[in-house]
């Protein structure tokens, strides 16, 4: 008998505008010791499927079909039976451990709570409970004293481990992990994925892994199901689904996570590479916040028409460096030169500089004022700089450059009426309206769905080709650097530890840290990936995990 079996599961939400179907006739099975990956973009219904297993959906949800847990239909259970099954038979590692843990209880208590509730053997005495908690923490490679900590005292990776320990507290046979590594750094992500894999094989549990990131699933799952619009569009052995996707949606998803070193996913040819004059140069730039140093002496160059990727984990200082290059943050030491002249300090001088160098932010949803229409958002820069000329024409031109056509159709739209990719195009159009020479893009695709990432990256490449627009792309994603950059600079603890052409840095890394980053990228083709992280990291934990 299957551990978990979904038969013809459909979920509808009653909304203000009638019923919305989130999940349509999904059928899936999972055996003990098996890992099933559920892939899809945001809003495809994958989390709804997860929540329906323990009947945790909000009250306005209507469920059809069967959810069989060890052969028993969850939908038919009485409240008492359901409470007994929850956590004891199946548990959940929730998305965003930050919010899924109660902030005012010690994590030890939170792990012990379900043990006491479900009367796990030996939970009668408090000493045996605390020893079980220590054992669970040990399993997830955390010291026993972690039990005394409050959630806010732990890093993101540590919280995720606590969530996993909590999920194992009642020794369930089924664990559902909903985006367990989203919001974690690549290195930490690799550690958490390894941990999950080990637990599955040691404990013979069934694991359902939900993620938008195919590469994450590829490295952990036996089987893979891809969802789109509430339906499963492709299902099969993980390796096969990723290596030879048959459904177009799966193909798009797979393409969005390029493999470093794969020539097919590199979109830059040698002829593109520019040897233009130096546009922007940072010399020994250093930024201190009080006693902490965010940027510790950086030298960096961007030439005209060149795309440079600045790669690093969160907390490496890459965003601070970007703000400094834009003149939004004054360096503590060193200087920034644009076309050989030092960045002006006066308000009017900086304003003039902003016509040359523009910013594209990570999350277009929050980068656009929700009250401003597309027209106002794009015209904002024109109005600030009082640029002469016919405003509507200029706005229309910028929008067409960003491939929003016909531009007039988008004029009155508000950001919430657009898709994520369209919003990012509006942000880019707003920057283009000023006719800059250089774009500084801070994680330009990190918050976008996989299928639109490629389009935005293609847009950056096309703008370079057509407008000779240089770009400094800040990212944590080595695959992105591989796809579009001419040169790569790797940032670590406020310093640039390595820079050079993409081929040099990513195919023949010289610095240990670059190798660690490369090793942590989930690989799905063959076994090119080293078994262990070969490099001993010298990072203080808060830096690494923050």
């Amino acid at each position, binding site marked *: 008998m299957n551990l978990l079996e979904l038969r013809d599961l459909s979920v509808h939400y009653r909304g203000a505008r009638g019923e919305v179907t989130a999940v349509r006739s999904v059928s899936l099975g999972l055996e003990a010791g098996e890992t099933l990956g559920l892939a899809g973009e945001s809003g495809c219904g994958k989390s709804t499927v997860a929540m329906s297993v323990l009947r945790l959906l909000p009250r306005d949800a209507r469920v059809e079909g069967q959810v069989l847990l060890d052969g028993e239909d969850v939908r038919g259970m009485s409240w008492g039976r359901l409470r007994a099954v929850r956590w004891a038979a199946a548990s959940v590692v929730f998305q965003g451990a930050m919010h899924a843990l109660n902030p005012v209880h010690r994590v030890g208590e939170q792990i012990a709570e379900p043990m006491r509730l479900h009367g796990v053997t030996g939970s009668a005495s408090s000493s045996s409970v605390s020893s079980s908690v220590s054992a669970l923490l040990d399993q997830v490679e955390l010291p026993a004293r972690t039990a005394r900590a409050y959630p806010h005292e732990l890093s993101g990776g540590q919280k995720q481990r606590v969530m996993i320990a909590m999920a194992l507290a009642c020794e369930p046979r089924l664990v559902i992990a909903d985006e367990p590594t989203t919001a974690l750094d690549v290195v930490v992500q690799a550690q958490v994925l390894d941990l999950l894999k080990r637990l599955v094989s040691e404990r013979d549990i069934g694991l359902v892994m939900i993620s938008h990131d195919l590469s994450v699933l590829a490295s952990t799952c036996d089987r893979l199901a891809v969802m789109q619009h509430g339906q499963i569009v492709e299902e099969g052995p993980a390796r096969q689904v990723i290596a030879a996707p048959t459904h177009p949606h799966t193909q798009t998803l797979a393409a969005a996570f390029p493999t470093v070193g794969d020539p097919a996913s590199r979109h830059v040819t040698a002829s593109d590479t520019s040897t233009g004059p130096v546009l922007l140069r940072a010399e020994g730039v250093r930024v201190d916040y009080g006693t902490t140093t965010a940027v510790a002496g950086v030298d960096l160059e961007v030439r005209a028409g060149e795309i440079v990727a600045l790669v690093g984990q969160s907390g490496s200082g890459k965003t601070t460096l970007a703000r400094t290059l*834009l003149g939004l943050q004054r360096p503590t030491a060193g200087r920034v030169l644009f076309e050989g002249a030092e960045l002006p300090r006066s308000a009017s001088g900086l304003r003039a500089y902003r016509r040359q160098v523009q910013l594209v932010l990570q999350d277009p949803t929050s980068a656009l004022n929700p009250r401003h229409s597309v027209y106002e958002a794009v015209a904002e820069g024109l109005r600030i700089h009082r640029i002469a000329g016919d405003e509507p024409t200029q706005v229309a031109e910028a929008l067409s450059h960003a491939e929003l056509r016909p531009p007039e159709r988008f*004029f009155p739209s508000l950001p919430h009426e657009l898709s994520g990719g369209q919003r990012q195009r509006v942000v880019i159009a707003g920057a283009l309206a*000023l006719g800059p020479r250089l774009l500084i893009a801070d994680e330009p695709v990190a918050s976008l769905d996989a299928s639109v990432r490629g389009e935005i990256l293609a847009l950056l490449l096309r703008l370079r080709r057509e407008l000779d627009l240089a770009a400094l792309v800040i990212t944590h994603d080595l695959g992105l650097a591989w796809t579009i950059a001419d040169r790569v600079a790797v940032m670590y603890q406020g310093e640039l530890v390595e820079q050079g052409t993409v081929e040099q840095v990513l195919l023949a890394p010289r610095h240990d840290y670059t190798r660690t980053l490369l090793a942590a990228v989930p690989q799905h083709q063959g076994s090119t990936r080293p078994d262990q992280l070969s490099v001993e990291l010298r990072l203080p934990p808060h830096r690494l995990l923050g």
Partner: protein
Amino acid sequence: MTAIVWQRRRAAARATWREFAARRGGLAGLIGLAVITLLALLAPLVTDVSGLDVTRATARPWQPPSAEYWLGTDHNGRSVLLLTWWGTRVSLVVGLAATVLSVLIGTVVGIAAAHFGGWASAVLMRFTDFFLVLPSMVLAIALSTVLPRGLGTIVLAIGVTAWPATARLVRAQTLAVEARPFIERAQALGGGHGHVIGRHVLPAVLPLVFVNTTLTVASAIVLESTLSFLGLGDPTRVSWGSLLHAANVHGAVSQRAWWFLVPPGLGVVCVVLAFTLCGRALETVLNPRLKGER
């Protein structure tokens, strides 16, 4: 281009109105306010001011309600209905004027404290915090005792004691807005302080200020009635608070003169409740975070 903008704004206003009208409490409050305002405006047209003059009062004092005097008479033999009706005007005017004053101070201080940062903002915030915990009534009593009696004093006393709550709210909202990446985008586009405040902060803060205004009017009216009840109001004008002051001083409770006690107090309750209901409904409509919760 502006045509599109205006079209949008009209549509947004219509949508807000529809949502507001769907809330029974808010709608009831609004209707109540409209009726009360109308009554206050009509008072000089349909009634005779001379009825307020003590020297011309002819009726017997402390009369219970009758056909002639629907709400009875006070200790001077004046009609309680007439007094309460005219009291509406002073209570509303003082409440609104004091609110405008306090919301103005609060908004300016709040935005300044959040936007500019640095030590000046720290001092400003300390100052706000100090006034926030200071019991506003005690301060208002002190102010209206030492200043000459009059409507202006009452307005000033309420205005300068009620602003810190607005300042804090506006400051929090400004900080929240300024933490959003679109502010950074505006700065990267070259926008200065004026641009950021005018185009991004103010439009985002104003709905909240508006909600806060309706709620502040409610407390300002209560504060006005309390100060007048303590005898600190304008002695030459009739307000609900001063009526209750007279009732208390002349022993309406021991005379069991409920008709002198109930109408002015009920007036306060109705106006305050109407403003509060409106404010809460507006809050739910304009603050998306609260939608569907209250």
